[in-house]
């Protein structure tokens, strides 16, 4: 790891720091208590600064993780000895931190692989506490578990650093006011709380997958983080539920298409026109594997149906061979359960493939309140185009054009409008 170009070192170090920062913040917050999360973050920040100072001449140690953990442990022990924490520690291990007999051994124990995973899991549950808004949950996950800075989160959400800082600040107030801890939910609440975590990971993933963010790298990062955390849930028997596997399967199928979704110029390639050879076979296989695991038990979760739809696409060799009837059935089931407007739009598009575009137009026009939604308008215009009503199609594409700020989408709609002339 000590050789290679300077830029490589930077890349390795950047990636390492982000990932390890997430782990260390989780562990230290578990030790200090959720209320002292700011101080846990301070320790991690100091540790990373120290590492940069020591490693800046390219001398990255053989085992950089161990180096970071060692430095963080020492700082933490120092703070505990001096009783510098802002809020009293109130956790199941607080006693072990009070006596020199057990302080250092307890910290060593907390930094072992299993305990690190355990801390991350606890942190995930805590971040997805019902008293936080969905936005706050995702922000908190990205900040504490994924090691993103407020600036980076702001960039990912096309927002600014200040807004994110304020959101984090309010969340911390809430942690203290409502005395939220890093304890595991009881056995009764486990499934329900895991579902809440899954929902947040799903939204985090969608933020990466569907967002119109101009930077591809940021989008892929968000998806990767969502998958990593989902995998962590699968590794633990408490949270390895059928729906956890279904969600990871769904993510694998979606990400398998990453390489084919944009062309060389960064323009969007629609599912119909994607080169399926570019789909990542390994990820599709993984998706199939997790979908199999998800089939245990009697309960059907929305993720099962969404994963089944994604699987139908991923495992079909060409657009023409797609089993639209089956996919339509799945969408009908999903719509019955969720009443989600995006599902309704998607279902109408599938109806167009399965039973003809006229039916799709009727269905789409029945949906109320989406005239300001870009995707609704492009879907409707596409259907008009296919039935030969180019004039109406062009008009609606024109409307859609006003509703997006994404360059890739604007370019795609412009191309479509040209086809209508």
């Amino acid at each position, binding site marked *: 790891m000590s050789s290679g170009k300077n830029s490589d070192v930077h890349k390795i170090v950047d990636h390492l720091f982000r990932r390890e920062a997430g782990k260390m913040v989780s562990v230290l917050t578990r030790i200090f208590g959720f209320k002292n999360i700011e101080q846990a973050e301070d320790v991690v920040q100091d540790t990373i600064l120290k590492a940069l100072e020591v490693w800046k001449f390219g001398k990255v140690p053989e085992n950089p993780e161990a180096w970071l953990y060692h430095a963080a442990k020492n700082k933490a022990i120092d703070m505990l000895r001096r009783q510098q924490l802002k809020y009293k520690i109130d956790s199941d291990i607080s*006693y*072990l931190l*009070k*006596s*020199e*007999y*057990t302080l*250092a*051994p*307890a910290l060593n*124990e907390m930094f072992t692989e299993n305990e690190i995973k355990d801390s991350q899991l606890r942190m995930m549950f805590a971040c997805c506490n019902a008293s936080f808004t969905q936005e706050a949950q995702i922000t908190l996950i990205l900040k504490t578990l994924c090691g993103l800075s407020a600036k980076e989160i702001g960039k990912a959400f096309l927002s600014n650093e200040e807004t994110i800082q304020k959101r984090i600040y309010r969340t911390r107030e809430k942690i203290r006011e409502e005395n939220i801890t890093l304890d595991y939910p009881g056995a009764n609440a486990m499934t329900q709380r895991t579902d809440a975590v899954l929902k947040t990971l799903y939204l985090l993933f969608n933020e990466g997958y569907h967002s119109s963010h101009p930077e591809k790298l940021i989008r892929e990062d968000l998806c990767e983080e969502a998958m990593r955390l989902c995998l962590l849930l699968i590794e633990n028997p408490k949270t390895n539920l059928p729906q956890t596997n279904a969600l990871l399967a769904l993510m694998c199928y979606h990400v398998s298409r990453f390489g084919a979704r944009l062309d060389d110029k960064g323009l969007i390639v629609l599912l119909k026109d994607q080169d399926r050879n570019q789909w990542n076979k390994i990820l599709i296989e993984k998706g199939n594997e997790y979908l199999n695991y998800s089939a245990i038990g009697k309960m059907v979760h929305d993720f099962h149906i969404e994963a089944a739809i994604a699987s139908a696409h991923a495992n079909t060799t060409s657009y023409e061979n797609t089993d639209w009837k089956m996919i339509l059935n799945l969408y009908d089931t999903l719509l019955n359960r969720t009443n989600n407007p995006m599902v309704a739009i998607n279902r109408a598009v599938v109806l167009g493939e399965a039973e003809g575009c006229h039916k799709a137009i009727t269905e789409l026009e029945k949906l109320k309140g989406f005239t300001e939604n870009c995707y609704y308008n492009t879907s409707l215009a596409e259907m008009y185009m296919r039935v030969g009503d180019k004039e109406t199609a062009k008009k609606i594409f024109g409307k859609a054009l006003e509703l997006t700020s994404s360059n890739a989408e604007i370019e795609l709609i412009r191309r479509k409008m040209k086809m209508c002339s």
Partner: protein
Amino acid sequence: MEKFLYLFRGGENHAHNANDSEAAAKNMQAWGAWMQDMQQKGILAGGEALQPTGKQVNGTKKVVTDGPFVEAKELVGGFLLINAKDINEAVEISKGCPIFHENGKVEVRPIQKMEM
């Protein structure tokens, strides 16, 4: 519930040389487990390990000398405060102490309550 003091004497390894050998590190892990167990049961009330050096301040003249110079097996290596029903229970609890694997000893002393 009464309070008792455990005074630990002797034992090949103790907290002060916990990093010196694998055997000592293992021994301290056993201490950690023992103490965690006592904490969970609400027995443990406090305590620290001690370094094997120090000073002594003596008599009316408060003469300071180096010390404690006693035989290693008599040296106090640490103390704990615990809660127990009576001396018998305190003794029973002390038998879980890993110091006995090391041929050390525990002195169990009831805390004196001061009458008003």
